[in-house]
């Protein structure tokens, strides 16, 4: 069983329901219940098993037995004071068992006290409807742990759900995080309205940015009737901030507003940049047989950090760890380098030591990201030195320079002599 990430369990608020429609009537452990449970335990040899569907523990029980399979719903509910709230008892399936279609007895309790949601006053504020508990509207004291129990003759399951009702001043703490990219168009979505929408096509939302209504004639922001979206064209960093969507909901002749607040973060659209291999920058590298050679592949990935660029080495078109199973030739550690605000990735190819077959192998450095791919072939040639080519090339270059200098000096002398001779002609 893989543990699901869970929000730490909130301490019960310890508040009794203030509302008269909810009576803290039946404590969970009555004496009769206790005795009956003991008797049941003695009289029946029950094959009890718990089916674990990760988020729910479904227990096979005799109808009289207490339900032990108790789980906490991993998502918490957050709502604003004064707004309608629907808590849904999660439906669940496990293999052939589909509890949504089984006739189950569903009961709700709060903070370990049974809730009676019918009877009492004429218009209750809290009631159950199908699998859900309705709060119309929610008040601060409704915060707490709600427990729904589904039970039929063979199975039972208990799920705890946390509800936090907050003041409107704390709305940013319960906002939804959404992201759009600059210089593109995109949409914000007004989430979690589903249970309140009677007819999707009639849905009409009002949108606000930082509490200021967005004008319907605004060309930048468009909200179409029947959609949950706010289209934003040509997003810029100035568009980040808190947006609120609002829908009207009527029940029992009373009009309620349901709001959702979204924090929009804008991210800079990544610049399209194809990787460029800057090193090795020559076709061959000299190395001595039996020496250790490090051949870096350095890739320029531009000014934005395309560190998702994949860089690797191939030997005769096969990855090196497959070609060299003994690990004589390996890829070294990948380095992500920033030089003068420009970004590079470097992956070395390590020969430890250089073998004869390396002189007959085609090595290729390969770099690929979302926008392009480059492959650069290179070879290792037998040479006197295993030093990197440029180190080895310095004495050669110096020698060439000196020889060239001498040659030029001689030529100049000869030309000077010839020139005199020509002048004489």
């Amino acid at each position, binding site marked *: 069983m893989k543990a699901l990430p869970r929000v730490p369990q909130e301490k019960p608020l310890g508040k009794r329901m203030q509302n008269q429609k909810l009576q803290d009537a039946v404590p969970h452990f009555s004496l009769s219940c206790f005795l009956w449970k003991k008797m049941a335990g003695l009289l029946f040899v029950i094959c009890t098993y718990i089916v674990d569907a990760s988020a729910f523990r479904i227990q096979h029980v005799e109808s009289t037995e207490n339900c032990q399979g108790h789980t906490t719903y991993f998502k918490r509910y957050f709502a604003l004071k004064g707004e309608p709230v629907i808590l849904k008892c999660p439906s669940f399936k496990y293999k052939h068992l589909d509890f949504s279609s089984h006739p189950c007895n569903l009961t709700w309790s709060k903070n370990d006290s049974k809730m009676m949601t019918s009877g009492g006053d004429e218009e209750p504020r809290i009631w159950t409807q199908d699998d859900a508990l309705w709060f119309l509207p929610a008040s601060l004291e409704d915060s707490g742990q709600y427990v729904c129990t589904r039970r039929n003759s063979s199975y039972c399951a208990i799920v705890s759900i946390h509800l936090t009702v907050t003041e409107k001043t704390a709305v940013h703490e319960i906002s939804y995080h959404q992201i759009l990219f600059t210089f593109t168009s*995109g949409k914000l979505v007004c989430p979690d309205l589903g249970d309140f929408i009677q007819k999707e096509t009639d849905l009409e939302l009002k949108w606000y940015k930082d509490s200021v209504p967005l004008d319907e004639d605004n060309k930048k922001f468009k909200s179409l009737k029947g959609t949950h979206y706010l289209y934003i064209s040509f997003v810029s960093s100035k568009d980040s901030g808190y947006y609120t969507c609002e829908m009207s909901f009527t029940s029992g002749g009373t009009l309620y507003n349901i709001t959702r607040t979204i924090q929009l973060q804008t991210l800079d659209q990544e610049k399209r940049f194809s990787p460029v291999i800057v090193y090795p920058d020559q076709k061959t590298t000299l190395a001595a047989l039996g020496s250790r050679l490090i051949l870096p592949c350095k890739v320029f990935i531009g000014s934005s950090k395309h560190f998702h660029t994949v860089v690797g080495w191939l030997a005769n078109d096969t990855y090196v760890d497959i070609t060299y199973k003994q690990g004589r030739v390996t890829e070294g550690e990948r380095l992500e380098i920033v030089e003068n605000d420009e970004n590079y990735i470097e992956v070395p190819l390590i020969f430890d030591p250089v073998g004869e077959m390396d002189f007959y192998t085609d090595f290729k450095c390969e770099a690929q990201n979302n926008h392009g791919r480059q492959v650069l072939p290179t070879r290792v040639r037998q040479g006197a030195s295993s030093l990197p080519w440029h180190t080895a090339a310095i004495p050669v270059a110096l020698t060439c320079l000196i020889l060239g200098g001498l040659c030029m000096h001689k030529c100049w002398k000869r030309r000077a002599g010839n020139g005199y001779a020509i002048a004489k002609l």
Partner: protein
Amino acid sequence: MGDSEPRAGLEAHPSEIHEKPAAQMKVFKYRLWDVAQKSLYLRNNQLVAGYLQGPNSALEEKICWVPNRSFEREKFPIILGVQDGRRSLACGTGALPALQLEDVNITELSRGGEETTRFTFFRSYKDGMWRFESAANPGWLLCTSAQSNEPLGLTTSPDAAHIVDFYFQLC
């Protein structure tokens, strides 16, 4: 229990065949969310797309990926995983291929081989958005439902009810 899940066929071929593993295999950690702004989270061992409010945003599953090296590199074949790459996203085959998470590390699969096909997706990029095509099921794309809190799935027909365009961004 996770044990009851079918195990990846890969496990029959232990990784020891390579005496020196590709320790440098870079694992990329990304956020994946659909164009309707739904994030991914785990429910009943399934990846589900929905809206995470306030502190619930901590439940979001980050997606880890590595390239699959045995496919045409031009198609950008990748293997997707969750929980730091310890569990990989696999596609079933057949008339209606389904998705499931399997307890095999994405880095084990990145070495490629035929048995890694069902773990492989070809990713394509257009106008800042990504699509992921199942390598085992050509034409089938990773999708979310237009409804929230529904499992991630596969579809051949993107429409208003099946969203196939995702944002995919380095964390």
